[in-house]
């Protein structure tokens, strides 16, 4: 019951926001912050009381907060939700990142009611996906997240927003339909004809038909690869990210991409263990290509946000490398495969925090100068030290410096994958070097050197604009001296949204046991299931 409340509380708040248009604009975002905060508190309570079940196999049993209601009995699909070591960290991440986005958007001037309502709707969709233990329920929430994000990009994006939103929608919708086809294959292939993940994982379908199993895995893999995104299907990502509003990008990269990788761990691996073992090398190779492709293309970008977007492809490549290695049963022992799986799952959380922070920070650039181009900015360390510090921390975390969560994640992925796929792993390490280079380059271009701030930002987009709606009518701040060397540092709400994400990334880097204790039993269970 608690889990259901956690999932639908944001939706309820969204409904209230839409139904009561009299809530003043500022209070609308306030409602969003409050709802997200309460939701996060509930997730926190859940994690505190979380007890992984006996035998520590979080996939087949040992679920906490489980609810199982019938929904469509004719095809045995149900409202089956639950929490285990796989989903709990991602639920917590969702709670944290959405709260950060809410705080970041405190001054959102444009249709704040609808904006807040959309994000709350998205939050429900994401939490629901992570908590689903039924394929159809998973699909429902998965698809709703696409719808929500489409409207966020189309309605509040900039640049070519409408087009990017459409591209995003089409790509991911194709992916989700491939996923649906795969799910139907699982349903028809299973002995008892059910969509229930727990039942399917306990008695995997299509075990004795390698061709059908491979095709179903192909459909599911395609669907998740688009969403993740992996190498050939990633082209929607930079456009969507660049044109989305900052909070939208943060959620897109921090949470929505994880829906794809989470699907691999939750659905593809335990439910199709044979097929996963057989095709694990493909996953490894696609992972490595994504690592390198993402890193090198990111290196070539002239736009901060596009660069960060491409590093997401790179980071998701590590995840797939780890998960693929976990399926190489013949060439690695169980210990190594568990380490790889834990690393992949750690990377999901770590990437959510760090990339979320990076996107919010790039949103700061947009709000100040309406451009992400590297050559328009420079020497920001002097006028905006807090921004510079935050950006530097996020960048160092993202390139995998020890002391940050990203390091723990990548270290484990490489350690675990080395035995199973040594060549691939060594190649993938190059990705680390390139990302290190590109982040350092970005830091240098943005923060060091002579101060440069885009000067001819058009007057009607000065970031003080929202101040106009202060009830006391202070309009003085709206007149900004448009000099070339003015860069306002982070404001209170921006600090309050970004810094906690970075702090969490550091905590997870210094005290990884907090998260490892949750992840490891679940990873063991997954590896055991894949090894069948």
């Amino acid at each position, binding site marked *: 019951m608690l889990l259901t409340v956690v999932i639908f509380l944001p939706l309820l708040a969204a409904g209230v926001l839409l139904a009561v248009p*009299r809530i003043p604009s500022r209070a609308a975002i306030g409602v969003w912050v409050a709802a997200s905060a309460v939701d996060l508190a509930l997730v926190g309570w859940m994690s505190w009381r979380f007890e992984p079940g006996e035998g520590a196999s979080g996939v087949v049993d040992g679920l906490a907060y489980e609810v199982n209601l019938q929904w469509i009995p004719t*095809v045995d699909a149900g409202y089956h939700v639950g929490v285990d070591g796989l989903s709990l960290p991602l639920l917590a991440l969702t709670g944290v990142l959405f709260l950060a986005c809410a705080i970041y958007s405190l001054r959102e001037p444009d249709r704040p009611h*609808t904006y807040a309502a959309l994000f709350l709707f998205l939050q429900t969709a994401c939490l629901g996906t992570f908590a689903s233990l039924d394929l159809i329920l998973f699909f429902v929430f998965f698809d709703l997240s696409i719808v929500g994000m*489409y409207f966020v990009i*189309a309605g509040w994006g900039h640049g070519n927003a*409408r087009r990017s939103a459409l591209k995003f929608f*089409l790509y991911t919708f194709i992916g989700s339909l491939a996923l649906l086809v795969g799910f*139907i294959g699982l349903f028809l292939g299973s002995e008892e004809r059910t969509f229930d993940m727990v039942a399917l994982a306990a008695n995997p379908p299509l075990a004795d038909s390698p061709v059908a199993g491979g095709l179903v895995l192909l459909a599911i893999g395609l669907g998740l690869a688009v969403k993740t995104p992996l190498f050939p299907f990633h082209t929607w990502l930079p456009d969507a990210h660049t044109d989305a509003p900052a909070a939208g990008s943060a959620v897109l990269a921090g949470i929505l991409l994880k829906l794809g990788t989470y699907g691999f761990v939750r659905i593809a691996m335990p439910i199709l263990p044979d097929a996963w073992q057989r095709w694990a090398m493909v996953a490894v190779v696609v992972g490595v290509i994504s690592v390198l492709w993402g890193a090198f293309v990111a290196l070539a970008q002239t736009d901060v946000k596009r660069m960060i977007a491409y590093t997401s492809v790179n980071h998701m490549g590590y995840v797939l490398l780890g998960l693929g290695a976990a399926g190489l049963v013949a060439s690695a022992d169980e210990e190594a495969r568990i380490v790889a799986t834990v690393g992949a799952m750690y990377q999901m959380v770590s990437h959510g925090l760090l990339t979320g922070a990076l996107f919010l920070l790039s949103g700061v650039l947009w709000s100040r100068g309406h451009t992400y181009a590297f050559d328009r900015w420079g020497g920001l360390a002097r006028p905006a030290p807090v921004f510079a510090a935050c950006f530097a921390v996020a960048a160092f975390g993202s390139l995998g410096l020890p002391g940050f969560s990203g390091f723990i994640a990548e270290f484990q992925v490489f350690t675990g994958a080395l035995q199973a796929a040594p060549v691939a792993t060594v190649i993938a390490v190059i990705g680390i070097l390139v990302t290190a280079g590109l982040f350092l380059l970005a830091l240098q271009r943005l923060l060091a050197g002579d101060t440069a701030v885009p000067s001819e930002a058009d007057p009607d987009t000065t970031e003080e604009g*929202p101040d106009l*709606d202060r009830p006391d009518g202070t309009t003085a701040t709206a007149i900004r001296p448009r000099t070339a060397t003015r860069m306002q540092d982070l404001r209170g709400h921006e600090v309050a949204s970004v810094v906690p994400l970075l702090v969490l990334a550091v905590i997870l880097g210094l005290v990884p046991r907090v998260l490892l204790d949750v992840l490891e039993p679940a990873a063991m269970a997954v590896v055991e299931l894949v090894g069948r």
Partner: protein
Amino acid sequence: MSGGGERVLALLPELLLLLGAVGGLLLGLWTPQHRQWRVRLLVTAACLASAIAAAVALFEPAERVFEGTWVVDTTTGVVRIVVALGVAVLVWLASASLAGHPRETEAYVLMLLGGLGSIALAASGDLLLLVAGYLLASVPLYALAGFAKDSAGVEATMKYYLMGAFVGVLMLVGVAALVLAAGTTGYLDLAALLPEASPALLAVGVLGVLAGVAFKAGAVPVHFWVPDVTAGTTPPMAAYITTIPKIGAVAAAFRLLAELFAGVPLDVPLLVAVIAAVSMTLGNLAAFSQTDVLRLLAYSTVSQVGYLFMVVAVAARTDLAVPALAVYLAGYAVTNIGAFAAVAATPAARTITDWATAVGRHRWLVVSLAVCLLGLVGTPPTAVFIGKLAVFVAAWDGDLIWLVVVAAINTVASLFYYLRWIAPAFAGIPAAPSAGEGAPGSGPRTAAGTAQRLQRHPVIILHMAAVVSLLLGLGAGMWVGVATSGT
């Protein structure tokens, strides 16, 4: 077989509709022009009573009455309920443009009779009744299509009528061939005799009969009338013509495949599967470039029939077909009526841009439209999503995996044009962007000027459709379980 007179009550839902039609006509004669809303109430009451009677009948075991010509089973039951409720809603949708019209009563009565024809199609267990149902579901619609008596409507009627008459003759030829082959018209007898019949006669028969139901359903290759008639008539009538007869026709096709053609040596399921694939593909491709909302919806209905025919193709091959058909029919009816209600709400706005402008800042209208249109795409958790899921599962289970893949690709393609409508409407909301924030209290409800241009009943119906679509989807388990428990 149960020839006893007491089983007349098995047709109670139809009788109620007929009584409503006759009673409405009589009442209309005795009622002054400006009080014709009484007829509307009577017609609505008849529809609701019919739907309730049909719902009660759902719980009784399936049977064949009147020498087996009239089948009362789950499929019929669902069609009865959906058609009756649909007609009731559409009467109110049409009332916005019909109120005070000199022939108001006639329109309502014709709508009821067309609904009756649709049910007859769905329930027929005999070829002759199928033909009668075809005519009853066609003739009133010809009149309704040209009801406005303007040039576009007359042209639409002519096209519709000529096409209908032509296909009707084809259908009669098909029926004649089947009768010639087997010497009987009852489905059960035919099903037993047809497998030994001559393949040539069978082929003519199958093609002719299928052409008839495909025409009523608006499926390729006899779909040409759909865009012209839809765009030529008024939005409420377009909603009626693209919803009510389709439901009966698809159910009729389903019964044909499930009973009549189940054992014939021709690959009829493949033929239907091809019709389905071509319908959805052509409908989607043609809809891409439409800027007129009615034409866009018209092609959208052609593509929707494609998905419905998927389940028709596997009617005889899987147990999952009946629930799938029930869900999709109900979901389609609700969602399609909702989409047309959105057009009817702004009768003057015919293009996508006009519509977005006319709706202006009514954000709930846009939300409801998005629910309906995304529902037609099959976005969860709406009714059509459940329908699509069920149809995909059924088609796959019936060994038509290629059709599932085609349908999935088509679903993505359909997104293009639905989003082409949603996106401007959604972007139209910020009529006053950040400047509007200057006065915090002046929320989005101030656009009184635009509010007057919206028709009240269609707006209510649009919202209702969106809500019902969501409820049908979320509550799918309950009602599908209940609806299909009778079998």
